């Protein structure tokens, strides 16, 4: 047991190192990208692993099956003057190709099951963030941080540059905008979700109007945001960086225009950011209560 877990820890450490060395750039969609990226968390790396196992199993079976077919097509043609055989079944063969796939499937299901059990373990988190999907934006509320309630709460929407370019007939070039050195068209927001590195973050996810789905590939999962229902998920980001995603459940006309940006920063930097946000929120609240007419304080 100890052996296995230390091996796994070593493997994860290595994967995290690989990600650091390669830069976080490869956690986000790249031109000509062919495969799933391993992502930024140990869970996303394991998701990538089960994906790769399944992929290679399929490639292997494919080579055998398609190889046999090609062989048959070359060998058993009428033009070569073959006389067709008459056999119609072969019980041994049929048993073999029923049993072998069962074994292969079990081999794929086993790591997937273990991973799924770990992904379901939302307990024992260090902080909670509530995500609410709206047509067509996200609201993030920092509920608590190490048991301490926080009052940070903001809306995150498509950035202004992308929004200008995406208007039908704008004539503007989607390649023209960059966030850092990432061509960020439709994958950038006005205000990203900031999370600390190395901290187990629990997300509680819901929606206001229709069903949305919160998907950041680098975190390894997507979770539907459903009106009236609260779903939970968790992540622990290993590597600082900017991770981009999108709404993944059709939610109306601007479904394609409600991106997600997660900015993972070192813990100290995060705490500073949180403090600044809290004082800003407090100031805004004070200003609001100072006004005579009550604002229609909806959550929209």
């Amino acid at each position, binding site marked *: 047991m100890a052996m296995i877990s230390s091996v796994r820890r070593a493997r994860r450490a290595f994967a995290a190192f690989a990600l650091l060395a390669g830069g976080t750039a490869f956690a*986000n*969609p*790249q*031109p*000509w*990208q062919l*495969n*799933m*990226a391993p992502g930024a968390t140990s869970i996303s790396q394991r*998701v990538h692993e*089960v*994906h790769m196992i*399944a992929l290679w199993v*399929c490639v292997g079976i494919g080579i055998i099956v398609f190889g046999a*077919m090609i062989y*048959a*097509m070359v060998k*058993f043609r009428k033009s070569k003057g*073959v*006389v067709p*055989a*008459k*056999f119609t*079944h*072969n019980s041994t063969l*049929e048993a073999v*190709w029923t049993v072998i*796939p069962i074994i292969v*499937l079990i081999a*794929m*299901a086993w790591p*997937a099951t273990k*991973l*799924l*059990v770990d992904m*379901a373990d939302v307990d024992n988190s260090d902080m909670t963030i509530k995500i609410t999907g709206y047509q067509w934006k996200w609201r993030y509320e920092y509920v608590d941080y190490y048991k301490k309630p926080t009052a940070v709460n903001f809306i995150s929407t498509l950035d202004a540059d992308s929004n200008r370019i*995406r208007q039908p007939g704008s004539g503007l*070039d*989607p390649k023209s905008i960059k966030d850092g050195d990432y*061509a960020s*068209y*439709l*994958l950038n927001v006005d205000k990203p979700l900031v999370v600390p590195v190395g901290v187990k973050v629990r997300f509680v996810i819901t929606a206001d109007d*229709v*069903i949305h*789905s919160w998907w950041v*590939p680098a975190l390894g*999962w*997507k*979770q539907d945001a*459903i*009106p*009236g*229902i609260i779903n*939970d998920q968790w992540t622990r980001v290993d590597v600082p960086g900017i991770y981009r995603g999108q*709404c993944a459940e*059709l939610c109306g*006309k*601007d479904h*394609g225009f409600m991106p997600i940006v997660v900015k993972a920063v070192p813990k100290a930097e995060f705490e500073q950011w949180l403090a600044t946000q809290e004082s800003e929120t407090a100031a805004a609240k004070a200003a609001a209560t100072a006004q005579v007419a009550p604002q229609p304080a909806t959550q929209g």
Partner: protein
Amino acid sequence: MAAANPAIHDVHDDHDHKPQGFLDRWLFTTNHKDIGTLYLVFSLTMFFIGGTMAMLIRAELFKPGMQLMQPEFFNEMTSMHALVMIFGAVMPAFVGLGNWMIPLQIGAPDMALPRMNNWSFWILPFAFLLLLSTIFMPGGGPQGGWTMYPPLALQGGVNVAFSIFAIHLMGISSIMGAINIIATILNMRAPGMDLLKMPVFVWSWLITAFLLIAVMPVLAGAVTMLLTDKFFGTSFFHAAGGGDPVMYQHIFWFFGHPEVYIMILPAFGIISEIIPTFSRKPIFGYQAMVYAIASIAFLSFIVWAHHMFSVGMPLGGELFFMYATMLIAIPTGVKVFNWISTMWGGAMTFETPMLFAIAFVVLFTIGGFSGVMCAIVPADFQYQDSYFVVAHFHYVLVTGAVFAIMASAYYWLPKWSGHMYSETWGKIHFWSSVISVNVLFFPQHFLGLAGMPRRIPDYNVAFADFNMISSIGGFWFGASQLIFVGVIIHCVYFSKQKATTQVWEGARGLEWTVPSPAPHHTFSTPPVLKPGMLAHDDVSH
């Protein structure tokens, strides 16, 4: 051999009993062949209407930036494209093939319930007129996807009522078609045509018909609940009123997963006819093929929630649906292995139907592979609602169901029309389609794995290259289908090459004992089965 067949004799008796007037012949027809033709022509028309929508979608996705349309219209196109292709193109094509071929293959004079047959067909054009007309209504057509998840689907305007009514009509049509097929197969077989002597195509349709009557009414129930939620104040799916939007997804996919098998089982049947013919060798493992179809149909009732892994099911549910879904791969694998074993040791020739059938086996298997990958829940947390899934279901539906339909069209066209189609142009159509369809759909795997969600009208520039390739493949595939129409028209109206009774050297079965073209009435007296006449009459196993 053919001359010894008593069926030929009948033909001379009622050889010109076609109704004369156009309306009599087509509108009031109760003849299974004419109704089959109507279904097939309807299906081809819908294939081009749905295809036009697909071309618009691919044009918008040709490069990043909103080029041609408003996002609302884009959503309308994706929703309509799927509804038209599923309920208008693929399902009616199979019903048409069933109508034409099942009586011929089991030696029946017609379908069991000929007048109901007429209704089943004639409901369809009205259903689709209704559905398509919503595009021109205020607020446009349905924009919530073919899955119509509430609450989104309920945000639509009047189109909600019209499209739900249209879906009810389509459902009634296919239910009537299914009952008719069941009655025909159970009651109308020629003497000696035991259940386990029937061609695999007939078997596949029998099982499909049971699936249809079991699940189409469930869809009708689901959309009826949508209707009452929208217009009559119920709260089946409104969280505000104590309903549950997730419950809709369960009910929908309880229909939806068997539905995807409704679209593939008859294809399995067709391929199981064509491969033995052109391998000149009986099908390998006939009984295993039949049992595989039956077990796939059974399993299809207990896997539905694999379409909703990211909805937030409890662990136990996710695991159950993962294991059950993976199980389906086993009977599916048996089918693929048996097709290859049928080819093994045969004397193959590669006419157009065989080419499409071989492409089916390869490309459907690729779709099956991505299906198994999607069954793995943690991986599906990434694949779900991404282009990877779009690639998956287009491999099983386009290179699966649609290729099988095209294979069957080439296979049976000589029997229907009495002429041979142009083999050269058939092959051009095949190669053009098979290359372009892979250019179209294979890169979509990459897009999904890189993180592109489905059902979006615009995307980040990182997705640009593969989308452009995919669109080019799309236009090319679309254009290739014009060749198909050309080949059909040429074959029916202009081809000078007469088809023989048997048409294909390796063909076995009752449909190849009637002349080509098949006369208006066949098997008015039941055929007498002789050894060697059927494709597999010595199936002791």
